């Protein structure tokens, strides 16, 4: 076999393996997409051709499921979490990156260590505190919980991006008459923008998909979309068609975000990694 044939074969095998991997990953999503357009009775039939229906989508917004309210909760909680987390994390990350702080390493490791604590371990203290503070079943409570989840991650991620900005560039702005705050606003933020956007999207996804805390700390007013999925039960069992329609509603914003920020996302990821 010639070298060229060997390379072609190797490429072929590579493409085949990638296609298999993609297929395995996509199967559940394809199943959900199909189920969302099926009637309840068709759901368990593995037919590729069926009579599609759109009635599942309006149904999930109607009583008793009222997905609209949960969609609003999820959106507000995830958005406010990101809007608070990114500025605070950026300031913390800038300090860690640019100043020599006492106990810097200890602080950074402690922040990282909070990520290793299993959520179930700290859920009870959260429940007791929130009960005493009157934050149970509130969006504010969920935002606080989500902040505690995403902040360590955001600080570490943004620090990586800021570390990648050459110090010379900041100093050049300083000798050209910029104060530290002006340097942050005029130089660091524009240069770290792809990184901040990436960190923001990650935080949004984490907050959007958060399940455990929302399950324990909410029961009516502040229920979010992932918890809302558990409502699709009836006497005849799980309502997979409605559940799938709701699943798509949860996933669509993620797909749209991924499409919009794809370019920045890659730039942001490599910026943090390659220094």
């Amino acid at each position, binding site marked *: 076999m010639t070298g060229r044939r060997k390379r072609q074969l190797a490429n072929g095998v590579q493409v085949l393996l990638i296609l298999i991997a993609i297929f395995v990953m996509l199967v559940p999503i394809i199943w959900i997409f199909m189920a969302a357009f099926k009637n309840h009775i068709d759901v368990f039939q593995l037919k590729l051709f069926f009579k599609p229906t759109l009635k599942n989508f309006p149904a999930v917004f109607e009583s008793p499921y009222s997905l609209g309210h949960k969609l609003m909760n999820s959106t507000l909680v995830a958005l406010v979490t990101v809007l608070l987390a990114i500025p605070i994390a950026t300031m913390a990350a800038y300090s860690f990156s640019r100043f020599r702080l006492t106990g810097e390493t200890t602080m950074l490791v402690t922040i990282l260590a909070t990520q290793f604590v299993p959520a179930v371990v700290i859920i009870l203290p959260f429940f007791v505190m929130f009960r005493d503070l009157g934050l149970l079943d509130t969006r504010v409570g969920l935002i606080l919980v989500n902040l505690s989840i995403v902040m360590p991650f955001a600080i570490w991620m943004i620090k990586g991006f800021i570390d990648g900005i*050459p110090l*010379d*560039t900041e*100093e*050049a*702005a*300083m*000798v*050209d*008459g*910029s*104060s530290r705050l*002006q340097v942050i606003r005029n*130089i660091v933020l*524009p*240069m770290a923008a792809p990184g901040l956007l990436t960190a923001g999207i990650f935080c949004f996804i984490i907050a959007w998909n958060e399940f455990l805390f929302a399950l324990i700390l909410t029961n009516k007013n502040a229920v979010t979309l992932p918890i809302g999925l558990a409502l699709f039960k009836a006497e005849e069992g799980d309502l997979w068609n409605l559940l799938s329609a709701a699943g798509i509603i949860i996933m669509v914003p993620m797909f749209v975000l991924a499409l919009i920020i794809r370019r920045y996302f890659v730039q942001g990821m490599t910026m943090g990694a390659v220094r």
Partner: protein
Amino acid sequence: MDNPLVSFTGVSKRFGQVWAVKSLDLSITRGEFVALMGPSGCGKTTTLRMLAGLEEPTEGTISIGGRVMNGVAAHERDTPMVWQSLALFPFLNVRENVEFGLKMRGVAKEERTSRAKEWLDRLGMSDFGDRGIEQLSGGQKQRVALARSLVTEPEMLLLDEPLSALDAHLVIRMQGVLSSLQRELGITFVYVTHSQSEAFSMADRVVIMGDGEIAQIGPPREIYRRPATRFVAEFVGRNNIFEGEARGNSLHSPLGTLPLPVTAFGPAVMAVAADRVSANRDRPGEGPSVKGRFLSEEFSGTSILCYFEGSDGSTIKAQVDEEALDLLAPSHGEVFWISWSTDAAHLVGS
């Protein structure tokens, strides 16, 4: 020095346990082109950064225009700087980069635009105002960095190895640009470099630094011809160093007894520049000479540096022109006589 623009008085800088700069005293006059030169880690960049306000001296005072600058932040000084990395803002176009300093000083938009244009014109970059930084060549970026620093019309410009990232042919061209700019504007240039050719070709005075201290200050020719210490003689390069015991008018070295240009006693170091020595197959009739075995030659454009090995294993350098080398036609291991006139030798401090 009357009314200097910059004064360093007893300035030291410590990083942890390391003293980067030790008790530095230096005055720079208005309109002077001063080059700080030395090997890596000699403290030249730290000295420049202290002048820019990017580092605070551990001890001593730095004054600019008679005002003590200790504790004054970089953005409150008027000391723009050109970096080795150029440090242009990649998210701004060429014109916005040049306008940046003016914007920070609150200059109105119309004036900003016209002054930026004026400087881009002056540096031959008028057609590139709307270009992104990444679309420029190294030399073009260099000009933008210069325009950005000079647009505020400062009294002094600091340059930290600004040409070291450029190709050799661009370095020579940019040296011309820098020299003529400095003369035309009449502003002070403080230029950090490890390149002897850059420092010697442009500066009015060269400050040689070693191990955080000033080893010698003087005009380029003086530094080259009369190095004050062995360190300077070796750093400047192309110097032959003869070490031994001075006894009156002669130096007793492992290579033999060599006449000294001055009377001295005790351990002494004598330097003879490579372009002041000649190599011959026969021993010259008069003047000092030592024997050396030919090792190799190094072609550097206009001249050739020949390396010989002395009888004590030391390296002796002789700078010759191409014609002389053809006549000499040395082959490896051949023995030559390297000679000079007594007044070409210079006694340096150890």
